[in-house]
């Protein structure tokens, strides 16, 4: 299971890569493996205000459709439109080319609700048993 260091994770298997006031958001390798081949993504609109842990996007695979929840509160800056035509990018590169969107997050303190790579690793091992 690929769990890169230096990025943050949620219990619902989203990740956030933080660069200054901006966070890049996607779903983790674990999420991608449980979903299987991803066939469709619905992304938020640019400018949309997101709330931490609230619904922000949908991802659909041959097995199931799942909600994606915002790892932080803030405003959507850019969306990865490549995913609309090439959802397989999420399978190929969950943490890079398969990112969902970027956002300007509004509350630094919310980072405390996220996990680092080591805690997420433990969390995933716990639920995989």
């Amino acid at each position, binding site marked *: 299971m690929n769990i890169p260091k230096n990025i943050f994770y949620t219990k619902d298997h989203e990740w956030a890569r933080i660069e200054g006031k901006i966070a890049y958001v996607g779903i983790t390798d674990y999420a991608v493996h449980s979903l299987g*081949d991803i*066939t*469709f993504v619905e992304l938020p609109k640019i400018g949309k205000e997101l709330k931490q842990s609230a619904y922000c996007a949908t991802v659909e695979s*041959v097995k*199931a459709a799942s909600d994606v929840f915002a790892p932080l509160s803030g405003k959507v800056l850019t969306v990865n439109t490549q995913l609309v035509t090439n*959802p*397989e990018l999420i399978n190929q590169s969950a943490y890079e080319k398969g990112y969902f969107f970027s956002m300007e997050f509004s509350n630094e303190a919310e980072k405390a609700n996220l996990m680092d790579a080591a805690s997420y690793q433990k969390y995933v091992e716990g639920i995989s048993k």
Partner: protein
Amino acid sequence: MNPFDGSSRATGKSRGMKLIFEKHRDGRRGFSYGLSDVSGTKPLAGKYCRATEARLPCLSELDVVRHYTNLSRLNFSVDTNFYPLGSCTMKYNPKFTERIAAFEGFLQLHPLLPQLSGGGMLAQGSLEVLYESEKLLAEITGMSAFTLQPLAGAHGELTGVMLIAAYHKDQGLRRKYIIVPDSSHGTNPSSAAIAGYKVKVIPTGADGYMDLEQYKKQLNNEVAAVMLTCPNTLGIFNPKIKEITDLAHNVGALMYYDGANLNAIMGKCRPGDIGFDVVHLNLHKTFATPHGGGGPGAGPVGVSKKLVEFLPISRIIRRADATFALDYNHPKSIGYIAPFYGNFGVILKAYAYILALGKEGLIKVAEIAVLNANYCQARLKEYYDLPFDKTCMHECVFSASRQAKNGVHALDIAKYLIDQGYHPPTIYFPLIVKEALMIEPTETESKESLDDFIDTMIKIAELAKNNPSVVTQAPLNMPIKRLDEVRAARQPDLRWKP
């Protein structure tokens, strides 16, 4: 098993699998019209004509008959093979109900007749069937009254949630939420959302039951209803159901019973007695009417006393002189939710089924359905992981996680079963079980057919260990081999073009 002859199978391609458009030959006709002998007719005005050619395929009548007859021979049905598709209750549909539904007196009756002046007296038999069916379903579920109108299970759910909304509105309340456990059928949250409610999802605990602490935390006087499937999609009956119901009623929320799994408890316990306020049933599951395309379905909804006045119109009543009539005088009714009185032919078949089995028969249905599922569970649990290891109800849910380590996933097992002449169990559902295989054998299968299926499942488990590629390549004996489901979803090609 394979309906195709040996020669077409040998080439791996069959003439039967060509699209009807590909069988087109210019100028070929199924029949010819005579020349018009009416003089002075004008051609259709341009605005009524289509701009582009319709390009319908040209074939002879025999071409068309062969095309569809050959396709029909590829059908898989419970009449031909074992069909353990979990949560769908694919029981055998006895043929005598078809014969009754085809009686001329029922078949030729116009649905508007009872609404015409004096017409009701010409439709007494059908009205009586509707009236008595409502009464029987109310008796089976312990509810006060039923509407037979909803045309399918999910339609029944939406009707039920609309009744809940009408009730709260009548009380002058605006409630925002509906609580649904994560083990519910996916249609529950959908129905709640379509009716305008926000959905609160309660997770399942390690014991397979809804997490009671989470439930208590989420429950408050903004909750309109709690929708429960019991037994749930893990095939497990919640022993705390009464407590859950009481907690909801304490805050003024109503209880909704998803009757999709009624087959497991029929005659053993009644949702109405537990305190449920709304129940929907799937006649095409529990009461042995055909599913889907062979149906249509029917999703009657039963309610407790306080919701009766909101039921859809038309209502069927029995007058003092023992005649039956339609009644529209229900000012608080949510109105029409379907044309006429529901799928009458389906209701009639279910009525015949209930009368034929009787009380003792229906109890036996539940007992054998549960016994069959537990037999499958007991014989297979050595070979497949059983995430919630307890006595199940009408279905058992395994996980193919052990097999997945060797690259044999639930999907591969499903494909291999198709090759062996079985309809696969439901896979990847419920979502809370990884690599889920959800097996519902139903009561109509004999021990021999269960054993054959179980033996095949054991063989698959052995292959997954020793020779996984045999499973992952399946199906090999079908007219069409493994389909690229991912490409079909990513690049759907839904329209034939020359």
